[in-house]
């Protein structure tokens, strides 16, 4: 059973550590606009408790785009109400969260198809056409 599905959870108060992260995200957005350089914050590397993460996610809000990638478990990549700021959650095939990131980018890295995969897709399409 994934730990977050256990019905009894310990109540946790926000530690206040999430607040400065919003300043960091603002800086990264500025950098994205000025240089086009995307960046990522690894949320599991920071001293944030579940309540801090909730606080952060609520503040950033929900945006227009939400994506799911089925890659060895589900990954969700949701744009927050602040456009260009994405909340990325990787889960394993049992549904447990294995990593969480805030990605500041026009499009998150994981969503882009790799040129070699596109090449393989083109070949597949050619076969399809030749068989018509």
């Amino acid at each position, binding site marked *: *059973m994934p*730990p977050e599905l256990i019905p009894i959870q*310990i109540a946790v108060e926000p530690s206040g*550590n999430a607040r*400065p*992260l919003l*300043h*960091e995200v603002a800086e990264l957005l500025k950098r994205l606009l000025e240089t086009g350089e995307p*960046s*990522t*914050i*690894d949320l*599991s*590397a*920071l*001293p944030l408790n579940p309540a801090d993460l909730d606080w952060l996610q609520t503040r950033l809000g929900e945006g227009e785009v939400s994506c799911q*990638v089925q*890659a*060895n*478990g589900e*990954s969700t990549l949701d744009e927050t109400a602040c456009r260009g700021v994405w909340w990325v959650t*990787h889960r*394993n*095939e*049992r549904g*447990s969260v*294995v*990593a969480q*990131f805030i990605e500041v980018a026009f499009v998150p*890295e*994981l969503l882009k198809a*790799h040129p*070699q*995969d596109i090449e393989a897709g083109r070949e597949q399409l050619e076969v399809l056409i030749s068989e018509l």
Partner: protein
Amino acid sequence: MQGPLIDTLVRQGIGRRTFLKYCATLASMMALPPAAGRAMADALAAARRPSVIWLPFQECTGCTESMTRSHSPTIEGMIFDMISLDYHETLMAAAGQQAEEALHAAMKENSGKYLLIVDGSIPLGIDGAYSCIAGRTNVDLLKEAAAGAAAIVAMGTCAAFGGIPKAKPNPTGAVAVSDIVKDKPIVNVPGCPPIPVVMTGVLAHYLTFGSLPELDDKLRPTAFYGETIHDRCYRRPFYDQGKFAKTFDDEGARKGWCLFELGCKGPVTHNACATTKWNGGTSWPVESGHGCLGCSEPDFWDAGGFYKALSMPADPLKMGAAAAVAGAAAGVAVSFANRGKKRAAQVTHETTTLADLEK
């Protein structure tokens, strides 16, 4: 057979997105910056599968069990696609003469390039006769295999430090890999058994950067063994407040207070259990209500009793109430000393802190 790794994975239906996700997660677990995930994915995809020879000596197969069962058949299993495991007695189909031939063929073909993984300690008593494979002693086999290895990974506490076979009175004269091999790079991955992701992390680091990860003075990767269990324990605030469980069924135990007085070895044990946890992130010993045994430290079996608090005297006959109070006080002092040490380490090593983010 020995083409780039990504080709092998794509053939098995593992796409690049899955691979990128795996690398991002691995980088996060290894406490590397997020950008490293992308770099790892590029380097790993192009990596050629290195030959790996796994030699079991005086061991219980627990390390192999940990590796193969933990998240099977999930992402950690992928590491077996990243390497060419040419010899592993427990996992290989061949036996007897064929197995020995496979071992020698792999050693000859990949001389100077293969990675040697050893689990189990090596007995030196009566000329090593306590443990033999195909009529040869472990120490003889280790010396032969080590000679052609690029590096050696000592997997588990037995191979890293001697482990349980070395426990007093050490009847077989068991020693660690590093007691015998002196001229090759060695990585110790202790634990009884070690956490699977630590193992895959070491291999991924080797494949990605072409070198072994940063090691501490006991040759352990600092990414996983850099901090003690106690430093990362979610029960640490109770220790700092002096709230301890006194028995396994008292109020403190029910409220999840610190297990220091019940013999938890967390303060002196370097491992990643508190953060990576076990069984796919479900729980770990302290979370299930039992103190840390210190299984990843040298001589943990002889460390004076699993249920004796660290700073209490080892002789139970002399342990009175006064000693227990003194023990608790000493514990608090250790806590402050550790925090000071940790702060100093963070000041010198960490590039980004929350204080930096605030500006």
